[in-house]
């Protein structure tokens, strides 16, 4: 691509205005820094979840292995799922939401910068809280879905489930606070001219995800509150002997759980919808259809939850309704797949690493989608449910879909975040090892599943035809780990040695590429005026005609050159840094952790920790709310 060669030479240091040092990170309210914090934390937990997966695959590599005990295995698969969903993929998406939404809509920050910091700290402390369970030897062991009554006190007497119940509530607060923030940001902070149908596709997907979050998370919060009350206070929500419905948890959980699937995949769809047009040199095919398909997926996503429950015996009508809605949701999803293909069709395709991952998503997600449609048929699902076939399905969707999209997004946006490009050579190794490793790991699971291998068993006997498939899966996992290691090396090394990126290394079309990389603290020295969906491309044609700068500006975009000038120099008001969101988040997690002592029957300690945490939280909240966001000007 010519742009990299002809672009003026930028030095990344020049544009980076802001202090460094620990305190500046603890008190930051800048969406880019918070996005960076999200990115590093969630990559760390992605590695933790990957190591947990590695132990699982080591244990299952052959029959009757003893790497893990049955109890340790239960903790391992529960924490693998919980970590990957709540501590890795969701916050990786949140990292992109934070970093990109304001840049894509032409804003200087999110609507509530301090609430944004609060969301991050709650996530970090919640993640630490959840993983602290390992150090007291009581990691959650009831599966990421935590089915009650299995998780009630009678069957799970340890602290394990308490950590899980409280940890998920804490993480839910983080997601909800962030979602209110992003909804407000997207509704209210778009640059002049950026109407809803000119928003970049990633922002659209992010927007829809926020609605899924605010509508789905309250439901699991209530399910968790019931479980917590059952465990701590002796209520009977999941007490079958008292007449409770054994399916109450499953319904509440999956009313949350299925929208959660779209919470995990739509951000990756959004990233893919940015990458494919950029490297095909074409606008996204059928933009309005993509937008409506996203909304339709989200809408239908609330009406398919019981397809996770065909095996419980809901009866013909329930099975039929949920089977049909599940088939329906495949339509808007298929529309997206075809729109990506048609975007590439006839385009001038450049196979950069980001593009490879994006195309990888299109292919691998389709495989996961097709096995998903198979489960929509209740009779077929009865054969597949609780077998490794299901494990194969959702890993094609979550690894082949979400993670491939996120990796693509990382290659695509790393230059915007750091000012330097990731190595394409290492990137290519990373992609091919991931692609091969992922298929070696998860494709054989279709076979072991159809041969009857159940999920969540810690070992198995030889002679059932499962050994070869399991061994291949375990080898695939090792390849995935090598690929991820190469990614980490690339990530680390490119930070200092990568090629300098400049504003727009890929020649992409959306607003975030009009500003320096990394962006200055105020993002846009001048709020842009938007006249199209791909303002940078519309301007480019003028640029080639060597029109004057003024005429280029009238076309809708304006390239900002790194000046090294601070917000103060330019007279742009910026929010003050503050430690209060961190204190408030920490106090809230202390308050939650006090509940653990109720389980230990240490009421004085429990009450003092809970009340102490609540008091500190209230005080810091008041101090926060009563302090203005920025100095008067």
């Amino acid at each position, binding site marked *: 691509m010519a742009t990299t060669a002809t672009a003026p030479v930028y030095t990344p240091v020049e544009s980076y205005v802001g202090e460094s040092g620990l305190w500046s990170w603890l008190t930051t309210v800048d969406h880019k820094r918070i996005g960076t914090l999200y990115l590093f934390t969630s990559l760390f937990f992605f590695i933790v979840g990957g190591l947990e997966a590695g132990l699982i695959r080591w244990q299952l590599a052959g029959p009757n292995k003893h790497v893990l005990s049955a109890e340790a295995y239960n903790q391992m698969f529960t924490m693998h799922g919980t970590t990957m969903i709540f501590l890795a993929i969701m916050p990786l998406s949140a990292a992109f939401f934070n970093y990109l939404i304001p840049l894509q809509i032409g804003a200087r920050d999110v609507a509530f910068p301090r609430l944004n910091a609060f969301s991050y700290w709650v996530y970090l402390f919640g993640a630490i809280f959840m993983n602290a369970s390992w150090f007291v030897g009581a990691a959650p062991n009831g599966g990421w879905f935590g089915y009650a009554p299995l998780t009630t006190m009678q069957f799970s007497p340890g602290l394990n489930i308490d950590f899980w119940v409280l940890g998920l509530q804490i993480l839910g607060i983080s997601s909800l606070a962030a979602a209110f923030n992003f*909804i407000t940001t997207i*509704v*209210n902070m778009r640059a002049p001219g950026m109407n809803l149908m000119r928003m970049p596709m990633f922002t659209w997907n992010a927007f829809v995800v926020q609605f899924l979050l605010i509508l789905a998370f309250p439901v699991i*919060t209530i399910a968790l509150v019931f479980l917590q009350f059952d465990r701590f206070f002796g*209520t009977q929500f999941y007490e079958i002997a008292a007449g409770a419905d054994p399916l109450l948890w499953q319904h509440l959980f999956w009313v949350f759980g299925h929208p959660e699937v779209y919470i995990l995949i739509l951000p990756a769809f959004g990233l893919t919808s940015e990458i494919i047009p950029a490297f095909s040199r074409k606008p996204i095919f059928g933009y309005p259809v993509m937008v409506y398909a996203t909304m339709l997926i989200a809408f239908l996503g609330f009406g398919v939850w019981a397809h996770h429950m065909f095996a419980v015996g809901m009866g013909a009508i329930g099975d039929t309704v949920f089977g049909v809605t599940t088939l329906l949701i495949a339509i808007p999803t298929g529309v997206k797949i075809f729109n990506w293909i048609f975007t590439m069709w006839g385009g001038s395709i450049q196979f950069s690493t980001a593009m490879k991952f994006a195309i990888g998503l299109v292919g691998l997600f389709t495989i996961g989608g097709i096995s998903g449609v198979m489960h929509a048929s209740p009779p077929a699902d009865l054969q597949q449910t609780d077998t490794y076939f299901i494990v194969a399905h959702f890993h094609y969707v979550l690894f082949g879909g979400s993670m491939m999209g996120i990796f693509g997004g990382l290659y695509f946006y790393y230059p915007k975040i750091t000012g330097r490009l990731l190595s394409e050579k290492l990137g290519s190794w990373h992609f091919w090892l991931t692609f091969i490793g992922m298929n070696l790991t998860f494709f054989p699971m279709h076979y072991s599943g159809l041969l009857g291998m159940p999920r969540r068993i810690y070992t198995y006997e030889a002679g059932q035809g499962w050994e070869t498939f399991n061994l291949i899966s375990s080898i695939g996992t090792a390849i995935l780990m090598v690929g991820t290691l190469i990614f980490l090396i690339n990530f680390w090394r490119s930070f200092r040695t990568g090629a300098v990126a400049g504003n727009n290394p890929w020649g992409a079309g959306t607003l975030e590429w009009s500003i320096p990389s990394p962006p200055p603290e105020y993002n846009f020295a001048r709020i842009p005026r938007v006249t199209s969906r791909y303002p940078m491309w519309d301007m480019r044609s003028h640029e080639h005609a060597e029109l004057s700068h003024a005429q280029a500006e009238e076309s809708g975009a304006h390239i900002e050159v790194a000046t090294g000038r601070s917000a103060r120099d330019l007279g742009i008001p910026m929010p003050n840094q503050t430690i209060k969101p961190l204190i408030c988040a920490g106090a809230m997690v202390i308050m939650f952790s006090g509940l653990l002592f109720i389980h230990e029957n240490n009421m004085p300690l429990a009450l003092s920790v809970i009340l102490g945490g609540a008091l500190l939280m209230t005080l810091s909240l008041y101090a926060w709310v009563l302090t203005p966001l920025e100095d008067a000007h």
Partner: protein
Amino acid sequence: MAHAATIDSTHDEHAHGGHPPTSTGLDHKKIAIWAFIGSECMLFASLISTYLIYKGRSRVGPYPHEACLPPVCATALKPILNIPVTSASTFVLLMSSLAMVLALAAVETKDQPKHTFGERLLGNSKLWLFMTALLGTTFLGFQAFEFTSFVHEGLTIRTNLFGSSFFTLTGFHGAHVTAGVLWLLTLLAIDARRGLGPKDALNVDLAALYWHFVDVVWIAIFTLVYLIK
């Protein structure tokens, strides 16, 4: 022309308080509170659905609307819900919404001259904020009375499915009322200290939206839990 605007526009923004106007013309907080209320709807929907699903499934009394006679219950138990008392507390909560409307109107019109006693009364934001908080607290008092009398009649959160789902649902609502009362008292304290005026109307409006929402939820609870047998 447009080139010069690059520099000029930053100065213009500075002169106008430094922030570009919002896309909708509404304040950020107004959008956020509506999103929050939407989310809260799902919270209460989950609680109310669970209550309704568990209605009539309790194996032992006391029951909400039916007497429980031996041998199911050791001693005969009356229907436990006290509809006349709860009707009174519902009326109190509805009146608090009226007081909230008057409080917001008083803050919005603080700058207008008041001539008659009636105008001064209606324009007294401290009075109406206090009345709203007082009526909310009265509602909480009714709830405390109700919970205590239920416990004396043998219904706790552990007794049966009705007790678990009833106390959790109404307890969650009560917690929301409590948070609302604290919010109102905070506004009242600010009003007493420096006086709330039209520029604070937005912040009072946010509290009002929350307060009315909590009221509306109670109307749903009162209808579905108390009135429908």
